[in-house]
C-alpha cells in the first residue's frame, strides 16, 4: 500500500446512539433508539418492512435530522454534523447510481472527490470492481445493467474507500441466491480483514445470522433486542423476537402457570421456578421437539399437513385454532389426519407474558 491509500485508511471507530428519536410530522418513526457499536463490529439491524431500519441508518449517516438524542462516532459528537464530515460510506437501498456516469466513474466518484491521482484511481477502481465481479462492465452506463449488477456497483462504490464506518441498506436484496451467497462471504471477509465498523440493514434473517457479530431486532421504530445471533435466536427477549426469528418461526400456545406447571389446551408441562400467572404463552422451536406416538409426548394433536423440503420434513399440527410446526429428519413420515404426539424437552421451552409480550424467567 502506498502513501495515499493508507491516508484513506481510517482507524475503526465505535458508534454510540443515545435515545435517538425521529418524528416525521406527527409520525414517531424511531423511538428512543439506543445502541452501542464497538469499533470493528459488524452489527445488523433486522426487522420487518417499515420498522424504521432505513430511518435509523439514515440518521446515523446524517441524511435525516435527529429529532432528539445524541449520536457519537468515535469520540466525536456528530448529532448535527453534515454527512460528508462523518467519514462514512453508504450503500443506498435504492442504489443511487449516477445515471450519466459509467460504472467506472460511479465507483471512482468518491476517489475523484478525494482527489486521488489518476493512475492510482484506476487501479483502485479495478480492484473494487473485481471484488464484486464487475471488472468487464466498467464502461457501461447504469441503465445498461441488470438490477443485481447495479446493486453491485453501489456496493463497489462504497467499498472503494476506506471510511471509518460502513452503512449498508439491504445491499444484497436484488441478487440471486448463488450470487448473494458469494457476496455475503465476500462482504464478511472484507469486513473482518479491514476491520471497519459496519452497520448493515436487512430483513433477511439468514443474512443477519451469518454476517453479524451482533443483531439488533427492531419493530415499529423500537429496538426489541440486541445480542449475538445465537442469543437472539435461542434466548429471545419477547414474543416478537421469538416469532420473527427462525423459519418456520417459534410455536406459541397460550395457557397459565400454576404451581410450577404450565397448563394450556391439551398440554401440561413442567415450568420449574416460574411464578404463577394466569396469562402465559409457551413458546418452543420446531427443531427442538419431536413427533412421537400418540400419548407419548406432552401434547396430542391431529396432523394437518406433512411437507418434505428436501433436507427435512415439516409436520404441521392443529391444536385448537393454532398451528404447531415440528421439524423432523427427512426420512420421517406421517400421514395427514393421523393423531400424533409432540414431545418437547422442558429445557427448550420459553415462557412469555401475554399482556406485555415480555419473556418470563424462572425465579432462581
Amino acid at each position, binding site marked *: 500500500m502506498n502513501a495515499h491509500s493508507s491516508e484513506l485508511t481510517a482507524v475503526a471507530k465505535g458508534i454510540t446512539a443515545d435515545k435517538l428519536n425521529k418524528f416525521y410530522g406527527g409520525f414517531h418513526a424511531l423511538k428512543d433508539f439506543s445502541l452501542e457499536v464497538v469499533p470493528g463490529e459488524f452489527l445488523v439491524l433486522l426487522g420487518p418492512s417499515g420498522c424504521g431500519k432505513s430511518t435509523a441508518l439514515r440518521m446515523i449517516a446524517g441524511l435525516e435530522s435527529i429529532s432528539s438524542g445524541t449520536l457519537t462516532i468515535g469520540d466525536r459528537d456528530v448529532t448535527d454534523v453534515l454527512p460528508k464530515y462523518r467519514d*462514512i*460510506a453508504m450503500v443506498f437501498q435504492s442504489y*443511487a*447510481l449516477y445515471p450519466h456516469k459509467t460504472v467506472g466513474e460511479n465507483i471512482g466518484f468518491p476517489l475523484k472527490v478525494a482527489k486521488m491521482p489518476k493512475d492510482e484511481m484506476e487501479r483502485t477502481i479495478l480492484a473494487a470492481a473485481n471484488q464484486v465481479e464487475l471488472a468487464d462492465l466498467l464502461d457501461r452506463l447504469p*441503465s445498461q445493467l441488470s438490477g443485481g449488477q447495479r*446493486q453491485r456497483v453501489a456496493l463497489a*462504490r462504497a467499498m472503494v*474507500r476506506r471510511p471509518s464506518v460502513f452503512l449498508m441498506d439491504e445491499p444484497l436484496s436484488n441478487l440471486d441466491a448463488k450470487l448473494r451467497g458469494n457476496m455475503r462471504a465476500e462482504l464478511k471477509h472484507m469486513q473482518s480483514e479491514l476491520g471497519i465498523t459496519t452497520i448493515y440493514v436487512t430483513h433477511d434473517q439468514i443474512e443477519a445470522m451469518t454476517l453479524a457479530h451482533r443483531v439488533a431486532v427492531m419493530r415499529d421504530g423500537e429496538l426489541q433486542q440486541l445480542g449475538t445471533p445465537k442469543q437472539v435466536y435461542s434466548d429471545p427477549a419477547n414474543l416478537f423476537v421469538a416469532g420473527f426469528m427462525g423459519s418456520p418461526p417459534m410455536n406459541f400456545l397460550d395457557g397459565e402457570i400454576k404451581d410450577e406447571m404450565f397448563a394450556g389446551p391439551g398440554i401440561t408441562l413442567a415450568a420449574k421456578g416460574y411464578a404463577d400467572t394466569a396469562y402465559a404463552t409457551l413458546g418452543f422451536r420446531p427443531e427442538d421437539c419431536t413427533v412421537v406416538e400418540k400419548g407419548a409426548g406432552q401434547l396430542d394433536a391431529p396432523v394437518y399437513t406433512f411437507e418434505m423440503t428436501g433436507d427435512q420434513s415439516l409436520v404441521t399440527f392443529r391444536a385448537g385454532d393454532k398451528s404447531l410446526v415440528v421439524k423432523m429428519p427427512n426420512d420421517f413420515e406421517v400421514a395427514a389426519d393421523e393423531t400424533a404426539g409432540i414431545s418437547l424437552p422442558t429445557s427448550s421451552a420459553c415462557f412469555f407474558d401475554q399482556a406485555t409480550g415480555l419473556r418470563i424467567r424462572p425465579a432462581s
Partner: protein
Amino acid sequence: MSAPTRRYSLFEPNKIGELSPAAKFILYSFLAAWSLFVLFPIYWLLITSFKTPAAVNNGPFFLPWVDFQPSLHAWRDLFILDFEDTFRAYSNSIIIAVSSTALSVLVGSMAAYSLSRIEFAPNLITILYFVALLIGSCVAIGVYGADLWLTLAVAVALFFLLARAVGKLYTVRLKNGDILFWIISQRILAPIVVVVPIYMMFQSVRLLDTHIALILTYAVVNMPIVVWLMYDFFSSIPRDLEESAQIDGATMIMTFREIVLPLSRAGLSATTLLVMIFAWNEYLLALFISTSNAQTLPILVAAMNAGERGILWWTMSVAIIVMIIPVVVLAVVLQKYITKGLLVGAVKG
C-alpha cells in the same frame, strides 16, 4: 427472419423499411405534401424578400427568374440605407432576449430547485401582515402625502417588531404547492391588463425605453414558466443521488456541477429555448415600454406596415427572415440536449 411467436395486433406499428412499395409510395407522398404545406410560407417569405414592389403587386408570382426577376433592393434598403435602425433593433433584440432569458432561467431554476428540495412553511398571517403594511404605506404616501422615508422606516420597524406576535395569533402554514401555485398564478392575467401599470412604474423610475426595463419585464413574465418546468424536472431527479454524492464527500458546488447539472441539462435546454423564443418574439409589452432606443425586431417589423407608402411586404420579408434565423440556429443547437431517459438506471424500481 420473423420471430416464431409474433403477436399480431390491430394497430401494429411497422417500420417504414418493411412496408410494401405501394404503401411506401403513399406514405412518402403524404409526408412530402405535408412538408410542402409547412414549408411553403417560408419559401414565400424568402422569394418575397427578393421581389420588386411591382412583382408583389402584380403577382402572385412563384418562381424567381421565371415569373419575376429577383432583386436585392429590399435587402439593400434594410441593410445599407436603414442600416442603423436595423442594426439597433437587431442588437436590442439580442441583448434583451439573451439577458432576460439568462436572468429568468438562473433565478427561476434556483427557485425551482429549492422548492423541490426544501419544505417551506411560511405563515400566511405574517405574509398578510406584510402586505397590509405595504398597502398602508402606499396609501399614507400617495393619498395623505406622508414623507417617503419616514413611512418606510415606520413600516419596517412595525414589521420586525410585531411580525412574530402577529404570526402567533393564528397559524396557517403554506406549503410548497401553495407557493408554486402562487408563482404560476402570476401568468393568469392577460398581459394587456398589466401593461398600463408596468408602463407607469417604469415611467416613475425613468426607465422607459431602456434595455433594463424590457429585460426585467421579460424576466419576470417568464419566471413562472421557468419555475414550473424546472420544478418538475428537478423533482424527477432522485434525492438519493445528491445524498450519495454528499456522503462520498462532495461539496454542495461539486454535487451541483457533477450530478444535478448534467442530469437537468435537457430540462434547462428546453426551458431556455422556450423562454428565449418568447422574449425574442414578444410584441405587446415592447410596444409600450420601448419607443426608439430599446426598440426590438418585432416592433421594427410591425412598423413596416404603417408607412405612408403602404405595407412594405418586401422589406418586411427581409426583416422576418433575419429574425427567424437565430431561433432556428438556437433550436438546432439545443436540440441535441433535449433527450429523454437520462435518469434510467439511477434508482431501482
